[in-house]
């Protein structure tokens, strides 16, 4: 029997202090102790490996068979035309034939081939993959919001932009602040980093000179009659504070970070001159200035129809950008402290749907799919778990959403047994307890360097 997540953590951390003899008695009272002092234990950055996360969200659910879990022996009904997987730079690991650049970087990432939750609906699966929970009465915050709380706001983050940035479009509630409140919403850039000028919503305005910006700001202050009468009003003071921060963001370092014009052209080309490629480059730049959590919402993976045509077009784009991101992070010495997490809400049906109206498409598939993790304390060059011969079920070592999320939290130094303070004053935990429909097969210790 597996120990529960809570006990596991307590014994590991507390047993060291009290010695083995004391561990049993401590475990009994430990729950109470943690509830009593959640704030103090929420962040233990001393053992944190990772400082930032880049989440490549494969919006719609990417096919696992065509990317990181090829099944050439399953036959054409499973492989479609993509039946020739390629070797990687790690012995024994093969990946999809449209990912040659990533094949050269396999030593940097590990592939989880036994991710599972069994949900085939976008909304529920997206929520589950990004909160670790099944929908219930409360809307829980996404991993990004939780990380921005514990590694950002609560940890004295002082970067030039919000600690949770989305490139470029937000997914809505499934990846957002949930019940944590407005402050924890991600900053969604809008715009397109592949354009000549990346118009970042709220930061870079088109057609307004700096002189005009400052003149109209002065006008706004001159006309702030009510504000002047009510200077002691706490909400107005907060308003002024957020305004100052907004202007600091607009005219401070954030503007520089979002300006890609100074980046070496060859490097930009290697990332790929497309929205995803330049978003990956942008994500690296955000990591460099200390942003703890960046989500790249990569659209277009819900390929019910024209699946293989779309794979031919999209996978090379993904391959170049992601491979360059890994090598670029690594060359700059940032990969050790940056988790890169690739995956969507689910995989896609291993068996190709040849019949109309799909005519060679793949449907939603939550029973077994792949997730890739790299950096920040995740060691590369490994495969975790395995799917069966056709890729339609887990064969070895299932990995559930909270196993993945909990592992990342652990690498980030976030105490997974801590509580989530929230404006609704509800007594909530960072991760759900394992029971009923919340399943766990343990943290990804096999690929974690702590």
């Amino acid at each position: 029997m597996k120990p529960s997540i809570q006990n596991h953590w307590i014994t590991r951390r507390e047993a060291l202090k009290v010695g083995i003899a004391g561990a049993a008695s401590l475990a009994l009272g430990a729950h109470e102790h943690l509830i009593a002092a959640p704030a103090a234990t929420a962040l233990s950055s001393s053992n944190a490996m990772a400082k930032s996360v880049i989440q490549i969200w494969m919006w719609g659910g990417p096919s696992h068979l065509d990317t990181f879990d090829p099944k050439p022996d399953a036959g054409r009904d499973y492989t479609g035309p993509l039946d020739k997987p390629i070797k990687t730079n790690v012995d024994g690991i093969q990946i999809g034939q449209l990912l040659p650049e990533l094949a050269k970087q396999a030593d940097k990432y590990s592939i989880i081939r036994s991710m599972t939750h069994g949900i085939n609906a976008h909304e529920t699966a997206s929520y589950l993959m990004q909160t670790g929970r099944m929908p219930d009465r409360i809307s829980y915050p996404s991993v990004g919001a939780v990380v921005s709380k514990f590694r950002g706001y609560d940890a004295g983050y002082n970067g030039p932009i919000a600690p949770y940035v989305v490139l470029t479009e937000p997914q809505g509630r499934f990846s957002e602040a949930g019940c944590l409140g407005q402050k924890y919403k991600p900053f969604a850039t809008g715009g397109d980093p592949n354009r000549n000028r990346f118009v970042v919503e709220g930061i870079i305005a088109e057609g307004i000179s700096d002189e005009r910006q400052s003149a109209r700001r002065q006008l706004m202050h001159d006309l702030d009659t009510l504000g002047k009468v009510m200077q002691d009003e706490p909400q107005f003071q907060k308003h002024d504070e957020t305004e100052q921060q907004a202007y600091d963001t607009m005219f401070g370092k954030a503007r520089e970070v979002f300006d890609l014009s100074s980046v070496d052209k060859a490097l930009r080309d290697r990332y790929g001159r497309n929205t995803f490629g330049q978003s990956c480059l942008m994500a690296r730049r955000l990591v460099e200035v200390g942003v703890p959590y960046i989500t790249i919402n990569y659209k277009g993976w819900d390929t019910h129809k024209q699946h293989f045509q779309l794979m031919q077009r999209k996978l090379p784009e993904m391959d170049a950008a992601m491979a360059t991101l890994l090598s670029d992070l690594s060359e700059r010495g940032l990969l050790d402290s940056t988790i890169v997490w690739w995956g969507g809400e689910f995989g896609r049906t291993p068996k190709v749907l040849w019949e109309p109206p799909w005519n060679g498409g793949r449907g939603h598939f939550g029973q077994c799919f792949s997730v890739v993790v790299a950096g920040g304390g995740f060691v590369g060059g490994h495969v975790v778990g395995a799917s069966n011969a056709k890729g339609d079920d887990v064969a070895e070592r299932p990995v559930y959403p909270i196993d993945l999320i909990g592992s990342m939290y652990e690498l980030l130094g976030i105490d997974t047994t801590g509580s989530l303070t929230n404006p609704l004053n509800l007594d909530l935990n960072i991760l759900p307890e394992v029971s009923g429909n919340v399943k766990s097969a343990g943290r990804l210790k096999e690929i974690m360097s702590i």
Partner: protein
Amino acid sequence: MRALHYVVITMILVMASCATLSGSTSQPIAPYEQSSEFEPANHIDEIVLESLTASDLEPAGLCSDAVFVRRVYLDVIGKLPKPNEVRSFTRDKRLDKRARLIDKLLERDEFADYWSMKWCDVLRVKAEHPINLWPNGVQVYHRWVYHSIANNKPYDQFARELLTSSGSNFRVPQVNFYRAIQGESPSSIAAAVGLTFMDQRIEDWSDDDRTDMEVFFSYVAYKPTAEWKEQIIYLDPTPRPVIDAVLPDGSHVRIEPDTDPRQVFADWLIRPGNKQFTATIGNRVWTWLMGQSICQDSPASQPALLAYLQKELIKTHYDLKHLYRLILNSRTYQQSSIPRNEDPHAAEHFAAYPVRRLEAEVLIDALVELFGPAESYESPIPEPFTYVPESEPTVSLADGSITSPFLEQFGRPSRDTGLLTERSNESTVQQRLHMLNSSHIQKKIESSWRLNQLMTRERGNRGRLVNELYLMTLSRSPTDAEKAAAKSYLNDGDLRQGVNDLAWALINSKEFLYRH
């Protein structure tokens, strides 16, 4: 030291009593106040004044007509008054013009729109995850809430219908009360009933009390039909014995086999003696209008105030419009928002009208009304109701699942829990960036035909141009200083750009963004 203290206290007492008799020592502050006197308009004011005096607090001045007209429009119908509405109100010389305006606004369609929005937050009206009423259910439920409010349905009847109805979720709107609860277990239902009508989190009750309440909802049954997502909510017809049930106040009740236990509960809930029921609705309405609840367990506790609202509710047979009128006509409601005390507890005594940021829906509706164009919306799954007519304001959207990045950014509630605190009006950096510098807002201003029209019309008279912009955005005329500053800005460079910047500065002012 002690003697000095005494003198100070005496002075404060004298000042406080002066405020009630011959006007305060402080002068009214233009353009926000018109008098410093506190003349009680009704019994609410007598209670509030007594509590203020007892705590040596001075009430804020009476708000000016300009502040009042803006405030009462926002609070009653969720919209800014139009410039001609502001003008006709300020020019009106009748002494009872405020009461007349209140009556007029309470009869407008937008009143029902705006208050439906508030109620649909409480009742969790949304099609998708995690409530899953589905679009059809949302539309019928919202329509029922809307008509209940428009027809001023007595509140006890409103509650009773929600608790005791049976039938299809697409045909009997009220049964969606049960559908909007996550889970079909008696404990989930009891928790939702406790929260909605009794302001109680029954999760905090003892196991025994909780089990007792759950009994009343133990025979609610659900079955599907042949129609997609249709569900029948009904009373389980399986024969059952007589139940000796215990009501939340501890009294015992016998439920006969042919009686719907939900009706027994509803009868208990809405009977006039049930203080929890009237306190919940009295306080909820007060909070919606006054920005904060009547504290029941603090030094500023005002049991007399709540008791008065409860008494009025019962006397008028749960006439909510009577309650709105009572509050809106009170001098307490019509105070300015400029406090005259430094005591941080003054707000709990209602010593001023509290400023609050406009709700997401109200703010975007005001911006669209000012500048256009209509907003577009999205929903987690495609649904027909995402195609909202351009003329329809955001406030009247039925479905909490239909949303936009702006609404999400500005704290529209997700309608997952039914808690009032789900709505967040706090100010964030992202919101400031959006208002100050986003293409969304900038495009609205730059492409506004109303600004274009205004500029063309008043090109020759910049004073009138500034005046009109002030009426449109802040519902008042500018002060001399403001007018001078604005005119001098317009005189530098391109006029349209100047007008755009002036409009930008006004919608980014605290006076625009906060109800006050």
